[in-house]
């Protein structure tokens, strides 16, 4: 509640009478409201805010220790006790470290990117650098983080995405040569840790720290995410553009119209991750193998996932990831990006009888988007308005057995061009010095 009022420019101290969640469930005892009604009346009459108008700038923090290690421990304790940590060790954002990270910015440190909802913390390039410093990042990662933040802040309803019980998390798809340059994973294990391609973990962790510390998305207080999956690092990965079959276009070109080769970040708000066993087990022909796999993907999508209502018209029901070896094989069999989307859209439609038994129509009826509300007349009901809503990405390890479905709660898919400083090549050289050769030929 404090977040919500601060985020619209009010002081962060609303009049509140707090009740346990049980009272808001069907069949509950609402007697506590009656018992505490005087407090409610007081909130409507006598309550006064303790804050004045104006801007309060954050201060520098300070700890002292008997040794550097002792000071580092105390700094981490201070960050946790101020509710700014995530439980993993943090680098304190010293002036030196933040200044180093800011070397990766094409914009001045005080450039304002917006207010991070729902709390409404003012987010500058420096704010991003502070988070990236804490997350163990490097300067060459900053352009991707800044573009990702810009995309998040531009997303309609981002305040609700931050706070909702469904717990969506940003899935950032990076296109363009910057992905390889900064060691961002597009292959085996791209949604997890990789010491040879560590960029995604740091960038995603920094984004999450911004969401929590600047945006106020503190579990159980500022975000009601019941389960909160993928919230240590979100998901930051690259599309495997070299793995695209001939004639297939990068995600950013298809979705956002960016020219191939453009460095860009595209943000989908995902609500879950599901492995789909795609490959056949016996003596299927190539055609049968491809078609069986397509059916299994469509079957995973054909669920009354009501979180996807948010993106029914303009967003997406999710990201379907095809491993590059699968994409190439399917292209050889005549499948195109469009025909794959059309198959998935057509065959993931849900009979209205199934929607009714799941109580789904009621959620469609109360949706804020009139286009979505009108979709209730469709039987079978499509999980999104048109095939083009489905995000199809070629990424993952060189193995044909699985596809991956990131179901979404995503009213939009926001894309931003990534801007790098003139000194970017020097930063990449520094990375080679610090982390070893980053070229494919040098990797295990």
């Amino acid at each position, binding site marked *: 509640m404090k977040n919500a009022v601060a985020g619209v420019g009010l002081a962060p101290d609303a009049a509140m009478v707090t009740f346990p969640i049980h009272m808001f469930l069907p069949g509950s005892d609402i007697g506590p409201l*009656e018992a505490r009604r005087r407090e409610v009346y007081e909130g*409507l009459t006598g309550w006064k805010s303790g804050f004045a108008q104006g801007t309060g700038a954050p201060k520098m923090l300070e700890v002292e220790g008997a040794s550097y290690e002792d000071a580092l421990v105390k700094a981490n304790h201070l960050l946790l006790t101020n509710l700014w940590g995530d439980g993993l060790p943090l680098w304190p954002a*010293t002036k030196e470290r933040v200044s180093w990270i800011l070397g990766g910015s094409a914009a001045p440190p005080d450039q304002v990117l917006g207010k991070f909802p729902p709390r409404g913390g003012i987010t500058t390039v420096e704010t991003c650098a502070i988070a990236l410093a804490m997350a163990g990042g490097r300067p060459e990662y900053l352009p991707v983080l800044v573009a990702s933040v810009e995309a998040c802040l531009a997303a309609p309803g981002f305040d609700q995405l931050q706070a909702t019980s469904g717990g969506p998390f940003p899935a950032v798809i990076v296109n363009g040569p910057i992905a390889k340059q900064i060691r961002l994973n597009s292959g085996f294990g791209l949604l997890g840790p990789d010491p040879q391609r560590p960029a995604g973990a740091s960038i995603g962790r920094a984004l999450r720290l911004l969401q929590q510390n600047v945006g106020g998305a503190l579990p159980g207080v500022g975000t009601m995410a019941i389960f909160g999956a993928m919230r240590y690092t979100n998901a930051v990965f690259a599309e495997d553009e070299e793995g695209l079959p001939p004639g297939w276009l990068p995600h950013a070109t298809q979705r956002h119209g960016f020219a191939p080769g453009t460095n860009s970040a595209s943000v989908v708000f995902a609500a879950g991750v599901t492995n789909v066993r795609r490959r056949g087990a016996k003596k299927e022909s190539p055609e049968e193998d491809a078609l069986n796999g397509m059916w299994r993907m469509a079957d995973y999508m054909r669920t009354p996932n009501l979180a996807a209502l948010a993106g029914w018209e303009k967003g997406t029901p999710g990201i379907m990831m095809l491993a590059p070896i699968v994409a190439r094989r399917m292209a050889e069999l005549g499948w195109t990006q469009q025909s794959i989307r059309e198959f998935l859209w057509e065959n993931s439609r849900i009979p209205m009888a199934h929607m009714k038994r799941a109580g789904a129509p009621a959620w469609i009826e109360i949706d804020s988007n009139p286009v979505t509300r009108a979709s209730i007349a469709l039987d079978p009901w499509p999980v999104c308005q048109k095939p083009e809503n489905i995000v199809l990405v070629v990424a993952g390890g060189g193995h044909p057995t699985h596809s991956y479905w990131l179901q979404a709660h995503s009213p939009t898919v926001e894309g931003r061009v990534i801007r790098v400083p003139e000194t970017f090549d020097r930063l990449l050289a520094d990375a080679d010095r610090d982390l070893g050769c980053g070229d494919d030929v040098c990797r295990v």
Partner: protein
Amino acid sequence: MVKLEFHDPSGALEVTQPFAPRLATLEGKRVGFVSNEQWQAYRMLPLLKAMLEKDVPGIQVLPIDAFPQGNALIGTEETAAAVKKSGVDAVIVGNAA
């Protein structure tokens, strides 16, 4: 001793507008409800209306459905205009999302 100085990572907050002034009293006032019809609002708001009418002399509480209801409608300019036009002294918005 080793001293470590580092940034507070929470970003600046800007308070741009004051809260609406509180009513000195609810007595004799006209109060409305704007409901999104969620989280047991259909039971809680009528209870609140009944309590106000019982506890506060002279208060006039408009029917729960005096203004548009539901998430799709309560945030619109039309609803805000309807509330303003009604001349209520206060409005209670319920019941969150």
